[in-house]
């Protein structure tokens, strides 16, 4: 597990590092940056799995930073004193929001989410951040018809027929997307439940869903039952 901590308060950074080491034990590569610019520079050239981010670092525009971070392949866990920003952080696509002051249990809870298939939370993801060159484009989740896995990336297919490439994998997105709005129907597909016209059982025991725009997507055999339950 490759983890980056961006935290300017040395004492808190040390605390995070200590607890992270306890949780992940041996298989851990840990880096600490005490300024945001150092952290940004780091992720430009080094791949990581998880970012622990102190949001609203020194008054620089925290949400611009957040937008940038969530557009990346890794998961972002916010560790912040600005507890009133939690809902916004979730809506932007943070994996978790750990309010300060925190203890080991709360941080471990956040780490546990890394292995969970999907989130059980009241806070909903509302936007998906797409990185286009130096720009970040925010796509509202209701606007997404379905998502197709494309190797380590994902293709978001939106209402107007266009598609956008997201840096996160389909698995990572599945963890973030609200389970009562989106569901994984196939190794390569997540669909917006509202867009499903009907379920189709094809001859030979194959399953598919017909989406409203008239598109047919395959449904994995193992996922059919769950999908049927969700649609009822």
């Amino acid at each position, binding site marked *: 597990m490759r983890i980056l901590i961006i935290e*300017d*308060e*040395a*004492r*808190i950074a*040390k*605390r995070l590092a200590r607890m992270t080491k306890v949780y992940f034990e041996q298989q851990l590569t840990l880096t600490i940056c*005490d*300024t945001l*610019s150092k952290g940004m520079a780091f992720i430009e050239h080094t791949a990581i799995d998880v970012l622990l981010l102190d949001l*609203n670092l*020194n*008054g*620089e*525009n925290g949400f611009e930073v957040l937008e940038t971070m969530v557009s990346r392949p890794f998961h972002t866990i916010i560790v912040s*004193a*600005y*507890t*009133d920003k939690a809902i916004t952080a979730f809506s932007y696509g943070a994996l978790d929001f750990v*309010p*300060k*002051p*925190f*203890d080991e249990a709360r941080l471990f809870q956040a780490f546990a989410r890394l292995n969970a298939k999907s989130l059980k939370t009241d806070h909903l993801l509302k936007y998906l951040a797409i990185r286009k060159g130096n720009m970040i484009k925010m796509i509202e989740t209701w606007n997404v018809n379905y998502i197709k896995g494309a190797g380590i990336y994902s293709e978001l297919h939106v209402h107007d027929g266009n598609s956008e490439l997201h840096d996160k994998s389909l698995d990572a997105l599945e963890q973030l997307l609200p389970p009562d709005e989106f569901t994984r129907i196939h190794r390569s597909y997540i669909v917006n439940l509202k867009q499903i016209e009907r379920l189709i059982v094809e001859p030979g025991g194959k399953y598919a869903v017909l989406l409203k725009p008239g598109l047919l997507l395959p449904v994995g055999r193992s996922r059919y039952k769950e999908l049927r339950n969700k649609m009822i």
Partner: protein
Amino acid sequence: MQKWWIFLLAITLMSCRREISYEVTEAVVNRSDKAFSASVEIDIAEKKFSTPLGVRVHGFGAFTVYWDGYKIGQNGIPSLQGIAEVPGTEMSFYQVPDKLAGLGKHLVEVKGTQSYLPKVDRGLEAKPDSYLKLLRQPLIELSFVNLMAGAFLIAAIYYAFLYANSKLRQRTTLLFAVICFLFFALLAAEYLKFYIDIPYTHFYTRLTIIGWLTFTIAILIPLYFAIHFNLPYKMLFIGLLVFVLLGIYVLEYGHYDLTSQLYSLTFWIASVLILGYALIKKQRGSILVLICFGLSMLINQYVFYDFGLYIAFTLILLCILYLQTLGAKQLEEAHQASQLLSSRLQLELVKKNIQPHFLRNTLTSLIDWVEESPAQGVKFIQALSYEFDLLNEISDQSLIPIRQEISLCQQHLLIMQFRKELTYVWEEQGIEETELIPPAIIHTLLENGITHSIPKADGTIKFLLLFSQTETYKQYTFEVFAENRIRSERKGGNGFRYVEARLKESYGDNWQFSTAPFEGGWRTIIRINS
């Protein structure tokens, strides 16, 4: 107020009803040296009253008055064989005996001398009316005039006292007091004739006084508006006004009533111009005052009454009174706003250390210290509680000793040292222990310094507070020696707004605040002018 208007209306109607109709010939005046005689023929056609008939005579001199050859009275004492004349008044009233007061033609003869002002020929005028009415009419007029004059005298005194006892000393307040007093004086001068026998020799003295009073009021009222509505090029405008008024004075010299009317018209136009400007600029109260000016013109035009002009004046003064109270209201609002600001600043100071993010970050470090090295944790808690104590002590003050401010800063550094595990160095130079400073402003700069600085390679950040003073100012220079973080929005940060608001609260506009990076850190300068 309503009653007053009804009363006014009734009086106006009453005076409109003519109780006598007559014709008068023009006076035939014969002069020889200082002596003169004059005769006027009066033809009374109708008389609706049964009370005695009277006659009002206007003219200069000292004379005896005869009605159909019968002496009915005397005004002054005409000079007689070396005895000097005792001058009479310009206006005099006489009762006509009932037996001579019938309808038809009558002859009024006046015989006397005009030893003084021999070259002035005012002519002679005699008009019959109810004797009772002749005596009562001035009383009725005076009842109004005295009411107005009294009100303005009180207003003059009140505003003069207000000006004398006010800290702000607003020019408009004094100006209004002066205008009110002049207006009182004008009314008094105008109606003095009913109280005091003014010998005809001083008839023009009174008119001259009235002229100059009107002249002054005609300058001051537009000046008031110019100041109140903050007219650009005020003095140029007023200079032009004075020039026009002087022009009227020179051109119409000797025409007392006309001059006064022209003065009034001039200041009316000048005022309306200023009000028009105020209206365009959408200034408070300008519409109302403009309406009043329109109204005053109407009253002056259509109320053919001796004191129509004065009612118009009163209306204008009431407008100014309204503006004056509007100004007072604005002051009140400003005062409230400043009080509100003070309490807001106080709150902001208290909030400084209970800001959720400050507390949460501090508590996170604190927990860690307590878990990892409890003894240090206790020291941290003590430092924190001491800073709270200090903040508590200063929170309700607007100025505190500089030493207290420095203690607060040092205490804050102690806490931040625990949190950031950096070495913070505090240095000071030239601190004058007796100096006072608004609370937590250096503290705010320090906080900014901590947040926006990256320590030098050896893990230290140094802060330096420097005090210096000259004859004209005192200056605090606060320097942070560290690498500056990139700041997206340096100006207008909450911290700087707090500092500026505090400075304004204590020093008005007599301070300068500047903040900028320099090679090796950040420098902030607070200069307080003495």
